[in-house]
């Protein structure tokens, strides 16, 4: 075996977003040695981009809120295929996790009586999102980062993990490389927490960064864990559509929470035209009531712009397809109109949505306090991911834990805005706690040297193919394929076409070549990420084919309705003995009566 630099920890956390940082903090707090690895610099993970807020039933703005309402909202939003136990723990523990951030120095916007302010968001019955203007994620990641650096966590920035190492089925370490110098490293650990985030880079139009190549999903799959709910991809209804260079960048739902309305090119508020049955009782009858809701009137129902994201995204697609879109292929999102309702509207908008104001002014020459924005759906989040035990966050591979966006179960078929940041905190903490506990009861395992040599050999192979295909081209073709064939509106034949094409892309990926040397070489990094992108793309497609119905984020034009047969099952993907990808339908665990009752009460 070649000589690799090796590190040893009790708990190794892979990923330094909200989930990974929270897990690392928790594990180090109980006194075990913690290592933390991430692909970017510390504080730059996706979590930094989150805008709107953290959902938690603090009941600071509306005293009627409590965990039961939050639980019921989350289940309704997820169309009842969520893992109920995760939704329950999440709703119950989120308020404490948010208060804890304040204890660690976070400075949330305040209510008049000095408590943490909460705002409205889609699918949440009451104002529930603790926030800091529209830069909540920055506040959260900075708070965790600044708290964490004093905890003695050993951080490895700009390192990429390529493989999880196992001994007799148990996770015993990870193998990866330092991006700066391209050197390989071994990380031995008694327990491993994956917190690698999402998969958005599998699509052409996305709000996600280069980091979102589904690494954790793919690492876990290869290590023997199962992936659940992979068909459910959230297309956020409002991404920027113009100019082309910013296409896909997110426009926070906070714009609609503050009163922003969606209109088509005829000036019609089309969201009033299609309100789903199960939300009718909670939706405003007219524009007047919708506005009253946004100003905090507790007797008013929310405007239809704040229906769940899957539904809003589909309505937008319908308007565009039927020729009622905006000039650049989106629809209009207008917050400037509130000047009819309140004095100093421009100032109000700038204070509540400063980075949106900034973003449009600087990147699109649009002043959102005076003009409408053009928006359209963008690939944003994956509800599916690594299947874990709801309480401990351990996957079926002993010693391998997962939390945050790369884990799954809490969101079901559709995630409510704000439920991700709270998920990171609640389950990040749990993962850290149980990983530390696991580590305390085990010893370091043995490292399989042959396996490492294989991974290393495969990783440097692109350099031996200097004349091989450009990895960026392969990535681009993959993104276009997924966007076209496994996007917002799906059908059997397109998805079968995608499966077929994915096999060809796999062959091309094995022939990708790069030039230069191993020191900070983005071409090489892109070539290595292809494998993960291809794995998650295949999983998404297989799962979407298997679920022959439309539910939440999955919309199939060949099966446009919900189907009872799929109402109590999840898709489950794993690697077969022959190395091929296997899929099955797994019945949901039976919900206990007390939770059924909660859902009944909140109907």
């Amino acid at each position, binding site marked *: 075996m070649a000589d690799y630099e090796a590190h040893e920890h009790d708990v190794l956390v892979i990923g330094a977003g909200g989930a990974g940082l929270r897990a690392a903090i928790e594990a180090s707090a109980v006194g075990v040695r913690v290592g933390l690895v991430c692909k*970017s*610099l510390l*504080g*730059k*993970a*996706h979590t*930094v*981009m989150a805008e709107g807020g953290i959902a938690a039933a603090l009941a600071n703005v509306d005293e009627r809120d409590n965990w039961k309402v939050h639980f019921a909202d989350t289940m309704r939003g997820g169309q009842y295929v969520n893992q109920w136990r995760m939704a329950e723990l999440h709703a119950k523990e989120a308020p404490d996790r948010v*208060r804890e951030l*304040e*204890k660690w*120095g976070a*400075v949330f*916007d*305040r209510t008049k*009586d*000095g*408590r943490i302010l909460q705002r409205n968001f889609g699918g949440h019955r009451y104002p529930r999102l603790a926030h*800091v*203007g529209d*830069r909540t994620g*920055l*506040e959260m990641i*900075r708070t965790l980062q*600044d*708290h964490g*650096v*004093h905890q003695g966590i050993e951080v490895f*920035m700009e390192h990429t993990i390529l493989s999880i190492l196992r001994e007799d089925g148990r996770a015993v370490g990870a193998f990866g490389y330092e991006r*700066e110098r391209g050197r390989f490293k071994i990380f031995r650990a008694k327990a491993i927490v994956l917190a690698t985030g999402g998969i958005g880079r599998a699509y052409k139009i996305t709000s996600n*960064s*280069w*980091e979102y190549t589904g690494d954790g999903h793919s690492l876990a799959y290869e290590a023997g864990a199962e992936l659940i709910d992979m068909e459910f991809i959230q297309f956020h209804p409002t991404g920027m559509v*113009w*100019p*082309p*260079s*910013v296409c896909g*960048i997110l426009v926070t739902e906070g714009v609609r929470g503050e009163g922003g309305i969606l209109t088509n090119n005829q000036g019609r508020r089309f969201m009033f035209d299609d309100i789903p049955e199960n939300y009718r009782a909670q939706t405003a009858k007219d524009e007047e009531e919708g506005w009253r809701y946004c100003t905090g009137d507790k007797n008013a129902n929310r405007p239809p712009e704040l229906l769940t994201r899957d539904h809003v995204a589909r309505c937008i697609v319908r308007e565009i397809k039927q020729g009622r879109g905006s000039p650049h292929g989106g629809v209009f999102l207008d917050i400037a109109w509130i000047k009819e309702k309140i004095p100093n509207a421009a100032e109000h908008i700038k204070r509540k949505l400063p*980075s949106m104001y900034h*973003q449009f002014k*600087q*990147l*699109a020459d649009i002043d959102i306090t005076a003009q409408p924005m053009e928006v359209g759906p963008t690939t944003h989040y994956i509800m599916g991911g690594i299947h874990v035990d709801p309480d401990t966050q351990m996957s079926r591979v002993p010693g391998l834990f997962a939390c945050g966006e790369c884990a799954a179960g809490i969101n079901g078929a559709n995630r409510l805005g704000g439920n991700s940041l709270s998920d990171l905190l609640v389950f990040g903490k749990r993962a850290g706690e149980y990983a530390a506990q696991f580590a305390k009861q085990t010893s370091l395992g043995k490292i399989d040297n042959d396996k490492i040599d294989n991974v290393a050999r495969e990783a440097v192979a692109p350099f031996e193919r200097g004349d091989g295909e*450009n*990895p*960026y*081209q392969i990535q*681009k073709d993959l993104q276009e394929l997924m966007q076209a064939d496994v996007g917002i509106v799906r059908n059997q034949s397109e998805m079968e076409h995608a499966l077929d094409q994915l096999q060809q892309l796999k062959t091309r990926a094995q022939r990708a070549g*790069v*030039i*230069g*040397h191993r*020191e*900070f*070489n*983005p*071409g*090489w990094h*892109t070539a290595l990420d292809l494998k993960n992108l291809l794995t998650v793309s295949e999983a998404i497609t297989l799962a979407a084919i298997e679920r022959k119905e439309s539910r939440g984020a999955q919309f199939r034009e060949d099966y446009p309705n919900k189907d009872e047969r799929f109402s109590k099952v999840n898709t489950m993907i794993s690697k077969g003995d022959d190395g091929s990808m296997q899929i099955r339908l797994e019945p949901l665990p039976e919900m206990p009566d007390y939770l059924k009752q909660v859902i009944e009460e909140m109907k």
Partner: protein
Amino acid sequence: MSDQTVHFKIWRGDAKGGGFRDYSTECTEGMVVLDAVHDVQREQAVDLACRWNCKAGKCGSCSAEINGLPKLMCMARLSELPTEKPITIEPIKAFPIVKDLITDVSWNFEVKKRIKKFKPRPPDAPDGTWRMQQEDIDRVQEFRKCIECFLCQDVCHVLRDHHLHDRFIGPRFLIYAAALEMHPLDVEDRTDELRNAHGIGYCNITKCCTKVCPENIQITDNGIIPLKERVVDKFYDPLGWIWRAWKKKSDRTRKP
């Protein structure tokens, strides 16, 4: 300016040395410098190293010097740059070069560890929570907008020209300390370190840092100057010191 060819000089090299190389790419409407760098990376130089994440001015990864001015590449519109001459793109200067547009900014992460952490007063309410008024946190929130792009560190002459990294923490960490010191809940005292280990005295208020901050944080006026006043008061004004000690205590015991 849409759909024209734009020329660039991009710095390529590593710690051993390097220089500008010429590239050109087609420019479309709305394009930013980072897009151009990505185009070059995709089509002409797959090993061209640069950092980025959000592409929307939120993460502070893509700092570089564009035509000599420190900027975020993702927020620099090509339409706002003169295109008669090639646009130069080079790494920031206050930190050691790693490769191409990437510098070793790890020093910043080490500095942060040396600043005493947040220490809140006991909770105000029995349920373990605190009360703060919005107007009392506006200033702290301004400082907490910092995206750690380190552009201010890049232009500060104390670091850039005089390389006093071992004696001066730089504007980024002065406002970090200011955010802690002015946090209504914080009861820690960092003035000793600010004066000594953190070297606040090296700052001679040139305000270059404030000018380049992409978050428009008033680093000098709202952060450094009040901090300097605190340091001066504490060390040269014993009466003021007693008054503040009393005030900090009364702040602490004040209930909402």
